[in-house]
């Protein structure tokens, strides 16, 4: 599944989009967050980070479908 990265999360993974296929069963938002913290320990140092599914903030228990647009949302700082 394809995941988009913005702001500091893009710097952490070194690219703006990444294909992740390491999950054995259908992952949830929480599974993706855990995966990122293991693969890229810098994620644990952030104030927080959210995941958006189809451009809406998604709760931890939401399942991720292969065709969803998934994005990592680090702490926002507009304005």
């Amino acid at each position: 599944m394809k995941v988009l990265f913005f702001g500091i999360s893009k710097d952490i993974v070194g690219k703006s989009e990444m294909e992740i296929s390491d999950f054995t069963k259908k992952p949830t938002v929480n599974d993706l967050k855990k995966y990122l913290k293991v693969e890229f320990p810098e994620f644990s140092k952030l104030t927080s980070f959210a995941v958006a599914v189809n451009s809406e903030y998604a709760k931890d228990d939401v399942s991720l479908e292969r065709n969803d647009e998934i994005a990592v949302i680090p702490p926002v700082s507009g304005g």
Partner: protein
Amino acid sequence: MNKKIVEIVDAIDTSQVYAELSHPHSGGICVFVGTVREFTNKEEVVALEFETYKSMAIKELHKIADEACEKWQLNAVVLRHAVGAKNVEEPVVVVGASSAHRSECFEACRFLIDTLKERVPIWKKEIFKNKSVWVSAHP
């Protein structure tokens, strides 16, 4: 029917907003403009760089405009944010509302900018002389 303008742009023209918020049923217009400040914690900022997840940002901006129109009787609402590199004194965000009387548009304007800063997926990087920092990323 109220007027709603939501945009992510490369550069902000602050002279547009009066005409956008002007409305025959309004007796007041309140506007907030966010600009690039020269110093953060006494350190000189060279520029700010803004990045967005545009499709989601537009969705969130629309939700904020709709929420404001539910809370207050507003005739027009504007939420516009710039992206890219911005220098000291340049405008980066303009929000505003117009209403029959001033109290509604004052309250709505504060809500618009506060909620934008809380929820809209836009990220700001402060560029100093010898380093750059993503704002709010770390505790």
